[in-house]
Structure formats: C-alpha cells, structure tokens
C-alpha cells in the first residue's frame, strides 16, 4: 500500500487518462485495488471523485449498450464508510444497475459484490430485515468462489446485524468465524476490523479486559500496516 500511496498522484492521473479515453480494460484491472486502497487509507473523498469521473465518462452514449465495467464502477460508489457514498438512495440505484449488468455478464464475483453492497445499503437505510437475505446470498456466492477476503467482511457484517437484532449468540459466532478466517488469511485490514468488532462484543457484555485486548491488537495491526 505504501507503494500506491507514494505514487497516488500518478495513479490518479492514470485513472483520469483511462476514463477520458474510455479504456475499459485498463479501468477494469485497476478498479478493485483503487477502491480498496481508498477504503483502507481513508481517501474516501478522493476515491469518490475518481469513481464519479468514471461514472460520468463511461456512461453509455446514445444507443450504446452499457459496459459491465461501468456497472462495476457504479457498484463501488457505496463504500464501507459512510463518507464514501453520495446518498443511500442514489447509491442503491447505481448498485442495482451494476447488479443487472453483472447478472447479464454472468460475473459471479461481481454479482456477490453487488449483493453485499445492496445489503449494506439496506442496513444503512435502517431496513435490517431486507439486508439479511442480500448478505446471505452474497456470502453464499463468495463461499462458492472460495474468496476468503470477502467472506471475512460478510461474516463480520452479518454477525453485527444479528447482534443488532438481539440474536447475540448467532451474531457472536459469525464475528468469531470472521476473525478466525482473517487470522488464517492474514489480511491486516480485515483482521483489524474483525478484532474491533470482537472488542465491541466483549465491551457490551461487560468483559472490559478482553475488549481492551482485542482493541489493542487491532490498533497494533493498523499501526504496523499503516491502515486506518
């Protein structure tokens, strides 16, 4: 990540150049890393600006069929953090467009991503009941794809949702599963996130020493990996 950080101005210029020339292949190769880099390094506003540029420049012209990469760009305009989206309603509509394009393209990884984003959108709008089937459908796709990076996020998100719905045992188990998965994969951002969630579970139960231990470990990982 430090390498991307040092070259972020070049990355930004390359992205601007790619969208201006509608180089879909190059954009498709860069998109996932750009999205996660901006998430992990808290460059929400800059990430959103670059995605917004992509949304505008890659939109279908006249009778042209919408390109799947355009759909992928729009689906990523709703990030993990509330600062990384414009408005839940607009974001949801964009993710739905992205999902339709992914389904047409039979791109299972992208279908899984869009379902996750729709679940997050529903959760942020206060519709937890609608969020659950979307989270579960997304998780099932990622399990079938054996994508453990995304499984970690889905398990943690779903766990927190169940805890919010007063199904603590089910929620705790999912967050714990997410933590174990992330310890195995070693993804620092995911691991720090799951440790943070585990800390909150312990805190809410009044287990302050355990909560502090989880948070300390999470903090240490973030410091070491320069993620925030």
């Amino acid at each position, binding site marked *: 990540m430090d390498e991307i950080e040092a*070259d972020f101005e*070049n990355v930004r210029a390359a992205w601007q150049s790619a969208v201006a020339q509608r180089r879909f292949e*190059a954009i498709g190769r860069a998109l*996932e890393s750009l999205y996660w880099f901006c998430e992990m390094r808290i460059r929400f506003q800059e990430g959103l600006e670059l995605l917004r540029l992509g949304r505008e420049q890659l939109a279908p012209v006249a009778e042209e069929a919408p390109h799947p990469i355009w759909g992928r760009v729009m689906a990523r305009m709703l990030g993990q953090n509330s600062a990384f989206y414009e408005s839940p309603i607009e974001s949801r509509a964009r993710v739905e467009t992205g999902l339709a394009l992914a389904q047409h393209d039979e791109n299972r990884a992208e279908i899984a991503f869009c379902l996750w984003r729709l679940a997050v959108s529903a959760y942020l709008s206060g519709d937890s009941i609608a969020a659950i089937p979307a989270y579960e459908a997304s998780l099932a796709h990622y399990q079938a794809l054996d994508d453990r990076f995304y499984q970690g996020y889905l398990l943690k998100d779903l766990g927190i949702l169940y805890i919010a719905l007063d199904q603590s045992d089910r929620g705790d188990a999912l967050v714990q599963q997410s933590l174990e998965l992330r310890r195995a994969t070693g993804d620092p951002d995911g691991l720090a996130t799951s440790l943070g969630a585990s800390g909150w579970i312990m805190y809410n139960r009044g287990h302050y020493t355990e909560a502090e231990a989880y948070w300390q470990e999470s903090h240490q990982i973030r410091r070491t990996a320069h993620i925030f």
Partner: protein
Amino acid sequence: MCLTKAYRQGSELILELLQACSGLRMLVTSREQLQLNSETLFVLESMALPAVATLPDVLSYSAVQLFVETARRVRPKFTATTMNVQAIVRICQLVGGMPLGIILAAAWVEVLSPDEIVTELSQGFGFLESELRDLPERQRSMRAVLTQSWQRLTEAERTVFMRLAVFRGGFTHMAAKHVAGASLQMLSSFVNKSLLQCEPNRRYTMHEFLRQFAEAELEAADQTVATLSLHCIYYTDLLHQREPDLKGRR
C-alpha cells in the same frame, strides 16, 4: 552543441590547472558535475521556505528575504505585510525556492501585486521574464535558462526527458523505464545535470518549471498521447498487480 563543447573545454581547463599546480583548490559552480576524480560535490539546494505564512517569522527565511530585497529594488517602499505575506510565501513555493525564479517573480512587483503574481505563476513559468540589465541575458527569463539546459542534452536524452513530463509527484526508476525508456545511467545523468532530484527513498522528482518545459517539448514532438498511454497502462497494471497484497498478508 556549442554549450556542451564550452562546458567540456572548461572542465578540461580545470583538469589541466589541477595537474599543473599541486595544492591548487578551486571553487567551481556548475549545473553539472565536472566528472573529475578530484571533485568534491556540494549540492546547492533550494532556498529555505516557510511552511506557515506568519509575520514576523517568515522574514527569517532566505527565500522571503530575497523576494523582499528584489522587490524593493523596483519598488523601494515595498514591505511584507499581513496582507501580502501569504502571496509572497506562495510565490516562493511556486518557484520551488529557486533563487532566479524568486528574483524574476519579484521584479514584477513594480506593476503587479503579489496576489497577481501568484495568479500569473499558476498558469506557467513563461511569465518569468525580466528586463533587468544587471542580469546576464541568459538569465533574464526562466525559459532561456531551461533552454540552455535542454540544449546541453543529447537527442536520446531529450527524447527520454520530455517523456518524464507525464509523471506527477515523482516516479521510480522502474516507472521511468517502462513509460519513458529511461535507463538507470540516464536518470543518474539527469541528476548530475540537476534536471532531476533523487530523493532518499529512491524516487525521482522534477522541478515543476522543468516539467512544464519538457511537457511543451513532448507536445511539439507529437508524443503526448503515446506517452500518456504508456503511463496509464503502467499505473493501472501496478494497481492490478498489488491487489493480492491489498487483500492478503502483508
């Protein structure tokens, strides 16, 4: 070619003098290294720039002092005030603390306010010209200074250097190799000629005026689109290659 020849002749003269006179020491200023075994290099860096524009602290910085002194030559009552100090500091930053850049910019105080100078400078270095007769003709405009450096380059060096103009915020050797076809030797040569700076983290940076000059040359050579395309491919590929690192153990 003429300049290169003169430079070589100067270098050879210094060598002859050193060989003929034992114990001789010479203080030589040059844009390039002389490439002599007996040479000890002292790099003249940019003038000190303040991070925050507050009076009276900024007046202790050499860049601001030079600006105010030069401005007073064309407008004797000129002083740094709370109203213009931010613009003065911005001017010094825009010229990268380069003494000649500060002198050429300050000379405009006769007809422009510091704020107006900032506006002009933001549009490019072409504005940095002066009719001051006590400056050598080759130093009366930034373009003339940059043209001299440009003329000292070989054709192959020019081709590579103008391509480097597409980078933003510095670049690595690997990026320069893929985008501009720069070899490590060539980058080293550019550093020796003060056309690039090599930072401690091994990243290369180019002064903004040089970058603008090189960008214009790239455009004139009709190579902008092709070079931007290589830049775009290199950095989108870099992002793609780093995806497993972002998602996995680091």
